[in-house]
């Protein structure tokens, strides 16, 4: 019984999501009574491979397969899926899994399409991985709702929701062997390969900011975001917003928090003039603390927050900035 786990990386940098994938993979492989093979795809320096292998081993992989080919110049879902298909064959995998981020889900969908097998995206738990038919719980509505499902397939293809478990090193991890694997690829697999990259933002992003100061419809206009910008800057954070705001064209969509926006996890989320619709909440709920500023004490954002101020945001937000300045100067 072999479980093949895809490790995401961007030019050799492994996101936390890959450590999560390994953590879940280790559990799943144990449940299946089998072995976990981790796959890393692409042309990477030896040093990077060693780092990845060390991580993979720490999180419980018995074997690391480095998949490489001249045509693997960057990420491409077709090529990555084809690599996984051939590798799954080579290691005689019973199941293949990835973490449910954009790339993980995309590659798994390509693999599923190619094999004409089902693919269950964004699972949170699999209960009986030793049976022919698996039972699992998965995310619907971006995590606002759960679905119990079953999966019957020759090769089980699943992804696990990002943040479904915290990454945890495996107990008693032994040295993992790195073995090279050269797939057979041709030009038909590189049609969807990244051709170019443009770099835009640097530094703290919405998904990594320690403080997010968000505004909703209650802010009232694009200009009225200036005091929120100021507060965010004083706290080394970023400005976020609700969909009502992006829909009005007051802020770019890259600022939107929620199901179809960004998932955030700051130390504190300051949500002002936001009612807290479920699709917004699901993007904000991983915040360590939430402070809602709203005129409506019954607003969902208020009743679900750790702290609230029931008042006009246009008065409260500038007052917070003024108080911060007063303390810093004083």
């Amino acid at each position, binding site marked *: 019984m072999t479980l093949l786990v895809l490790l995401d990386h961007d030019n050799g940098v492994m996101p936390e999501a890959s450590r999560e994938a390994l953590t879940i993979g280790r559990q799943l492989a144990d449940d299946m009574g089998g072995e976990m093979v981790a796959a890393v795809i692409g042309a990477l320096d030896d040093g990077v491979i060693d780092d990845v292998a060390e991580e993979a081993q720490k999180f419980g992989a018995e074997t690391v397969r480095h998949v490489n080919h001249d045509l693997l110049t960057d990420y491409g879902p077709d090529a990555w899926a084809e690599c996984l298909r051939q590798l799954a064959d080579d290691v005689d995998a019973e199941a293949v899994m990835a973490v449910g981020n954009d790339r993980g889900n995309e590659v798994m969908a390509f693999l599923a399409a190619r094999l004409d097998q089902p693919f*269950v995206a964004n699972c949170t738990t699999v209960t009986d991985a030793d049976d022919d038919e698996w039972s699992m719980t998965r995310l619907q509505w971006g995590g606002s709702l759960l679905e119990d499902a079953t999966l019957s397939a020759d090769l089980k293809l699943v992804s696990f929701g990002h943040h479904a478990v915290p990454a945890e090193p495996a107990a008693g991890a032994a040295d993992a062997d790195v073995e090279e694997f050269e797939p057979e690829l041709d030009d038909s697999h590189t049609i969807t390969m990244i051709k170019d990259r443009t770099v835009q933002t640097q530094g703290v992003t919405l998904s990594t900011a320690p403080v997010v100061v968000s505004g909703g419809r209650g802010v009232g206009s694009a200009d009225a975001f200036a005091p929120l910008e100021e507060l965010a800057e004083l706290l080394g954070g970023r400005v976020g917003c609700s969909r009502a705001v992006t829909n009005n064209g007051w802020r770019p969509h890259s600022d939107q928090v929620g199901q179809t926006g960004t998932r955030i996890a700051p130390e504190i989320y300051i949500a002002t003039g936001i009612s807290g619709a479920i699709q917004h909440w699901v993007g904000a709920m991983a915040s360590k603390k939430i402070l809602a500023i709203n005129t409506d004490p019954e607003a*969902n954002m208020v009743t679900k927050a750790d*702290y609230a101020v029931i008042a006009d945001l246009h008065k409260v937000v500038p007052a917070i900035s003024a108080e911060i300045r007063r303390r810093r100067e004083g």
Partner: protein
Amino acid sequence: MRILCCVKRVPAPGAKINVTEDGQQVETAHLGFTTSPHEECAVEEAVQLTEAQGGEVTVLTVGPPEAEEQLRYAASVGCQNIVLVPTDGTPLDPQRTATIITETVQSLESDGGEFDLILFGNESADSGGFQVGVRVAHALGRPIVNGIKGIDIEADQVIARREVDAGFEVYHLPRPAICGVKEGINLPRYPTMKGRLASKKVELESVDTDADAGGQLMVRLHRPQETAKETAILGDSEDAAGAIVDLLEELGVMS
């Protein structure tokens, strides 16, 4: 240019999502319906592309007869053709949905010619399977990339851009191509009165197709556990600023 957009009718819940007693569907007694913001943006993108370069937009949904509402909405913002594959409303698994869409595309193309571009949402709002578009693309033998926030059409290729943390990844897809679109690619327009009136006259094409169930079976829906929270009220005016900054200091985010 011929563009096809695939959209899915979903309920529009507010503060929370309730599930019917048998756990088979979202309780929709008091809810309106909509399509995912991603799909709304796909429709807007298709309309903008054809406004700039000529051509027409077809919108397709697989769903209950009531999904005509979402198709008419798309017509009211500028789509010319609307196609419904009627179902009894029971949720379909992604493999089955993909097969139905593939067959419908083939039948639409044999009547009206190839679609230069097919747009999907990045994921459906409710079931979020992240795969229907990819399966359809594979079955049609066309390239697809997901998560697209920028599209340029050139003579023989589609330049598609995907936003990542640091910027954009750029893909060059030979035409005919398929993209999974993300909200933010554009700002969808609201229907005008004229658009609304015109949409009533658009003829609804109904296509009967079905397919076998796939290997993923839904058993039941349920809400995640919620831990009841006591909200600490820090004040009811700007005088709360002192208490808020105390809190920020306590959380260590003031440094």
